[in-house]
C-alpha cells in the first residue's frame, strides 16, 4: 500500500501540531532455546534477535491517541517497560509503527517514504538520555552541530559556521571555548547542551525529549530544564517530554499523560492530573514519590508487585492485577477513555472521582507477585 504522499502543509491555527491516533507498535519475541519468559528482555522487544522460533508478540504501544498543539508541552510518565520510549520512536517512524496514524504538521508520516519522510521529519527532533551515547566521540562539537545543517543543505560553509556559533550561544556555551572540543572534554550537562543545540539547529517545531535530563545531577538538571524553557519561549517550540520522574514532568508540561503497559491510562492538564488524579495507577505513582516536605509521611509502596509481562498482558484493564479497586468487570471489559473533567480523560471503570466499588474482588490468581507481599 504505497499511498501518494500528501504535500506538507503548515498547520492551520487551532490545528494540532502532532496528532497521534490508535498507534500500535509490536515486536516479535523469539526464543533462544528456552521459553521466552524473560520479562525485561521482552520489554526491550528486539533483544532476542531474528533467530529462533516465534515465542510471542509484545504490543509495546497499544492503541495510543493524543494531540500536541503548537507551543504546547505534553509530558508522558510511566515506569520502565511502559512503552513510552517505543511510542516516541514510533512517532519518529524509527521503526515504523505497526498501525495507527501520526499526523505531523498536516502530513501523515506513516505513509511517507525516503526523501519525503526526511523532509517531514526535519521539523521533529530528538534529545536522548545519554548525551555521550548520542554524540560521536570522534567528532568535534562544531561538526556535531553542523551535521544536520549539512544534511538538509542549510546554507554554505560560512553561513553554517555562523549558525553553529549562534546555536552554541543559544544553549549557553561559549563558541570560542567549546566549538573545537570533543565530547569527552565536556561535562554531562555541557554534552547535553550540545545535543540540544544540534536538535534545534534546523528550527524544528517539535522536540521529543526521552529522559533528556534524567542522568544529570540535580543542579545541572535545573540548568538544562531552564534552557528547555528558554528555547520554548524564544523559538515557540512544542515538546513531547518523556520521563519517569513525575515531579520533573509536572515542572515542564502543560498536559500530562500516564502510560502503563503500552496504554494511556490518564491524560489531562498537568495541574488536574496531579491534584486530582482519576486513575488508581496515577495515584500510586504520586504516592511513591519521596517528599522533601516538612513532616510529610514517608512514601509507602502503595501498589504491590511489578508490571506483568507485556507478552501476555492481563485481560480487560491492564492495571487490574495490581489495582486495589479492581472487580470482575475490570477483567472482562477493557475500560475506554472517558472525559470526566474538562480535557481530562481516564481509562478506568472505577475512577477515583467516584467511590470505590462495593464488592472489591482481589484477583488473587493473578497476583503471583502481589499476594506474597501482602503477608508482610
Amino acid at each position, binding site marked *: 500500500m504505497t499511498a501518494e504522499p500528501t504535500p506538507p502543509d503548515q498547520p492551520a491555527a487551532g490545528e494540532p501540531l502532532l496528532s497521534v491516533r490508535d498507534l500500535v507498535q509490536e515486536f516479535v519475541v523469539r526464543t533462544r532455546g528456552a521459553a521466552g*519468559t*524473560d*520479562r*525485561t*528482555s521482552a520489554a526491550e522487544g528486539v533483544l532476542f534477535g531474528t533467530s529462533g522460533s516465534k515465542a510471542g508478540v509484545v504490543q509495546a504501544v497499544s492503541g495510543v491517541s493524543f494531540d500536541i498543539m503548537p507551543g504546547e*508541552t505534553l509530558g508522558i510518565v510511566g*515506569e*520502565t517497560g511502559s512503552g513510552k520510549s517505543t511510542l516516541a520512536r514510533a512517532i519518529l517512524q524509527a521503526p515504523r509503527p505497526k498501525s495507527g496514524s501520526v499526523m505531523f504538521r498536516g502530513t501523515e508520516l506513516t505513509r511517507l517514504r525516503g526523501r519525503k519522510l526526511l523532509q517531514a521529519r526535519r521539523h521533529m527532533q530528538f534529545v536522548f538520555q545519554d548525551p555521550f551515547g548520542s554524540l560521536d566521540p570522534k567528532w568535534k562539537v562544531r561538526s556535531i552541530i553542523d551535521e544536520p545543517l549539512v544534511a538538509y543543505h542549510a546554507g554554505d560553509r560560512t553561513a553554517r559556521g555562523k549558525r553553529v556559533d549562534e546555536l552554541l550561544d543559544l544553549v549557553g556555551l561559549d563558541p570560542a571555548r567549546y566549538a573545537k572540543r570533543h565530547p569527552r572534554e565536556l*561535562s554531562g*550537562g555541557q554534552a547535553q547542551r550540545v545535543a540540544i543545540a544540534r536538535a534545534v539547529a534546523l528550527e524544528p517545531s517539535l522536540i521529543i525529549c526521552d529522559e533528556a535530563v534524567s542522568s544529570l*545531577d*540535580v*543542579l*545541572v*538538571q*535545573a*540548568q538544562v*530544564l*531552564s534552557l528547555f*524553557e528558554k528555547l*520554548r519561549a524564544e523559538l515557540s517550540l512544542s515538546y513531547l517530554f518523556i520521563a*519517569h*520522574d*513525575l*515531579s*520533573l514532568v*509536572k*515542572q*515542564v*508540561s*502543560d498536559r500530562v499523560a500516564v502510560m502503563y503497559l503500552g496504554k494511556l491510562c490518564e491524560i489531562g492538564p*498537568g*495541574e488536574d492530573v*496531579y491534584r486530582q488524579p482519576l486513575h488508581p495507577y496515577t495515584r*500510586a*505513582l504520586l*504516592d*511513591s*514519590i*519521596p*517528599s*522533601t*516536605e*516538612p*513532616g*510529610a509521611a*514517608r*512514601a*509507602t*509502596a*502503595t*501498589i*504491590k508487585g*511489578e508490571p506483568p509481562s507485556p507478552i501476555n498482558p492481563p485481560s480487560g484493564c491492564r492495571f487490574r492485577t495490581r489495582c486495589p479497586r479492581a472487580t470482575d468487570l475490570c477483567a472482562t471489559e477493557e475500560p475506554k477513555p472517558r472525559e470526566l473533567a474538562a480535557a481530562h480523560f481516564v481509562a478506568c471503570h472505577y475512577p477515583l472521582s467516584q467511590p470505590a466499588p462495593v464488592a472489591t474482588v482481589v484477583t488473587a490468581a493473578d497476583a*503471583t*507477585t502481589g*499476594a*506474597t*507481599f501482602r503477608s*508482610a
Partner: protein
Amino acid sequence: MTDVLLQVDDLRVSFVVGGRELRAVDGVSFSVDPGRTLAIIGESGSGKTVCCRAIMGLLPLGTAIGGSARLRGAELIGLSDAELRKHRGSDIAMVFQDPARSLNPTMRVGVQITEAIRTHRKVSRHEAQTQAIELLRLVRIPAAERRFHEYPHQLSGGMRQRVVIAIALACRPKLLMADEATTSLDVTTQAQIMELLLELQHELDMALILISHDMGLAASYADEVIVMYAGKIVEQAPALRLFGAGGAVRMRYTRALLDAVPHLERPAHSPLPIVGGRPPDPTALPPGCSFAPRCGSAADDCVAKAPALLEHAPNHRWACWHPCENGGAA
C-alpha cells in the same frame, strides 16, 4: 561512646591523577548509632561513594587513605585485605546502584547467595541452600524456591536488587551501606525497596547508610543527614531539623540542592532557581569555600578562607560564613 557503631574521624582519601593530587575526601567525620539511618547526600564527584568505599576497604591499591574509621571500637583503616574480610559481610555490607552489574550473569541466583554464606560461615552446602532460600523469603521474593534456580537475567530490576540485598544480608551485618541502591529503579519499585530496607533494618536491628543524590529520599527515610560538596561535609543535621517545619537549612549549597528539585507543588513552567557553573576541579580546589564560585551570597571572606564545619546549634553543623536565615526557603 560505647554506643556508637561506626565512628569516622577525619577521613581523608586522595588519588594521584596525572601527577596531581586529587583530594576526593577531605577530613570527613561522622558517627552512626546502631539501628539508625544516615543519609549522605551530594552530586557526582562530591566524595560520598569514595568515603564509604574507603571504610569498606574497596579502593584501588595506591590510594592514600588517612584518618580513622572504627567499627565498635575496632579500626578498619589500614587493615589488610584478609583482616578486612572478617568485617565485610558479617559487620558491614554494601549494596550498589546497578543490580545487574553486582550479580554474576552466568551464575544462578541461588549459587551466588550460597557462595556468600559459605565464604563467611562454615556450613554444609545443604544448610547454606536452606539459608539462601530463607534469605530470598526475607527480602520478600515470591516463589523463592523457583527463583533460587533462576539466572539474574530472568529477574526484573527490582527483583535483582532484592537478590543483591539478600546477599548483603547473608551474614546479618550490623551496618548496611546502600550506594544509590534505588536510583536505577522506578518510583513504585523504589518505594517497595526502601520499605523493605526499613523493615529489615527493624527486624535485624541494623544501621543503614544511604548514599544518594536524592534529597527526597533523605527527607523521607533518614534520621541524620550529611551533605557533601567537593570532598567535604558542608552541613550535617538531623533530618527533622533540616526538612522539618520552619526548615533550618543553613548552608547555601544544601539550600540550592533543595531548590533545584522539581516539586509537585510548583506550577508548570515556573522558573527553577539556577546555580551556574559546576563543582570545582578536585585537583585544584579553591583556597576558600569550595562552593563560593557558584554561591549567590559569596563575599570576599568566602573566597579568602574556607569556613570550618562547626556545631553552631545542637547537633547541627554547617560550614558557611554567611548562612541562610530561617532556612532560606525561597
